[in-house]
């Protein structure tokens, strides 16, 4: 039994009086794909964003490869430099891509290599080209984001993250902002990553992806982590009535 890539224990998060994460426990196994599903507003993004401390959690622990993120000790904030050090090995892909519009695809990918990893410009540029070729965008490298389709932009964003050689990749609804015909190209890049043994945590509404690619599926509702298990046991033989009702709504919405 390998140690977890991410170990989440008793995490609580408040937005003012609103209790957004309630005693969440979850372990993310290394080299596997974990999908996070649940109704809108259940706290999936919040939990994901706590994993790289884009969002502060108020109590509990989140350990990345055994190391506590965001705090040196409970209640004592980590120094900025140490936090940045940890974030270097955690890639994140956002629903809205968040590419930098004033840079070309290649510059978007090279930027982190230059500024964060300290690579010389020429090396960074060569690595950026490799990462873009990997996501099938070798011929779009010099385009600015405005000149790319949504699917292409999201693939650039994935290239930007993987070029940093992260040990963990976080995806927050990576295909939700895409036209249906562009979803496939992004999912296929993610499948390739998964097959190479990348540790991935994916917040998604794509139940097909969760069923076929995930090794584990975690279900959240109202800030609680209800269950985490194999895709089959969550999606096909759910025990908890809350999961059953969520899936019923999902099937109703997706049948016509």
């Amino acid at each position, binding site marked *: 039994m390998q140690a977890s890539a991410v170990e989440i224990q008793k995490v609580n998060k408040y937005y003012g009086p609103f209790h957004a994460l309630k005693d969440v426990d979850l372990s993310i196994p290394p080299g596997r794909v974990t999908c996070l599903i649940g109704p809108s507003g259940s706290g999936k993004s919040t939990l994901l964003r706590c994993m*790289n401390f*884009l969002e502060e959690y108020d109590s509990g622990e989140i350990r990345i490869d055994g190391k506590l993120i965001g705090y040196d000790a409970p209640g004592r904030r980590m120094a*900025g430099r140490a936090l*940045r*050090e940890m*974030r*270097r090995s*955690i*890639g*994140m892909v*956002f629903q*809205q891509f*968040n*590419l*930098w*519009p*004033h840079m070309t695809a290649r510059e978007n990918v090279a*930027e*982190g290599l230059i*500024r*964060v990893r300290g690579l010389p410009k020429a090396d960074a540029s060569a690595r950026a080209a490799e990462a873009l070729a990997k996501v099938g965008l070798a011929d779009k490298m010099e385009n*600015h984001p*405005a000149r790319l389709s949504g699917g292409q932009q999201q693939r650039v*964003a994935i290239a*930007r*993250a993987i070029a*940093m050689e992260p040990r963990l990749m976080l995806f927050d609804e990576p295909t939700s902002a895409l036209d249906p015909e562009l979803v496939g190209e992004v999912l296929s890049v993610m499948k390739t990553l998964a097959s190479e043994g990348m540790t991935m945590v994916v917040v998604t509404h794509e139940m097909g992806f969760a069923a076929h690619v995930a090794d584990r599926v975690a279900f959240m509702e109202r800030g609680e982590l209800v269950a985490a298990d194999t895709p089959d046991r969550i999606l096909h033989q759910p025990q908890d009535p809350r999961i059953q009702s969520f899936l019923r709504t999902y099937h109703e919405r997706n049948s016509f």
Partner: protein
Amino acid sequence: MFSIPAFLESLVPLFWAARYTLLISVGGIALGLVIGTLICAARLSRSRFLRNFGALWVSFLRGVPLLVQLLVFYYSLPLIGLDVPAMVAAIVTVGICASAYISEIWRGAINALPPGQAEAAVAIGMTPRDVWGRVILPQAVTMSLPALINELILLVKASSLVSVVGILEITRASQAQAATTFRPLEVYLAAACIYLLINLCLAALGRWLEYRTAV
């Protein structure tokens, strides 16, 4: 009768006076950029004191007419023992006044950026300095250019107010000219043409800058 020779003759001294108009506007915007950037930083800072100070600065300077500010400033300097040339007083006042508007232009542009822009940089492990220098500011500057050029054009026109402290810029020069030639219409029309020429040039400069920085 409108006299074309009188019109043409008054162009020459007014062109000469345009130096001062330009000096005050360009000096004012330069100083305004420096102070405005600091005020904007104060308003976005974590310190409550700095934020309040910035807000007060902006609301005071936007709420009092430039002409009144200029007079207050000009007559209060000797009181504190400072004997500065009228030109310096004018540039400083115009710059301070512009800083209020410029800090709001910056702040608007920075707030208009989607938060995801900075988040993507933070998530990758960039330092705050790089997040600002590489991601936020380059975009904010591009977004602000039209408003900044607009502000510069407003300053060129507002600089006519400094005639009250005795600087011979375009407006004051044309008043003097009109008084000696008894040809007010020709003189003021010449002044109008020079203002227009300056501002058309600035607008063209603005379009060129926008074109260059467009992605």
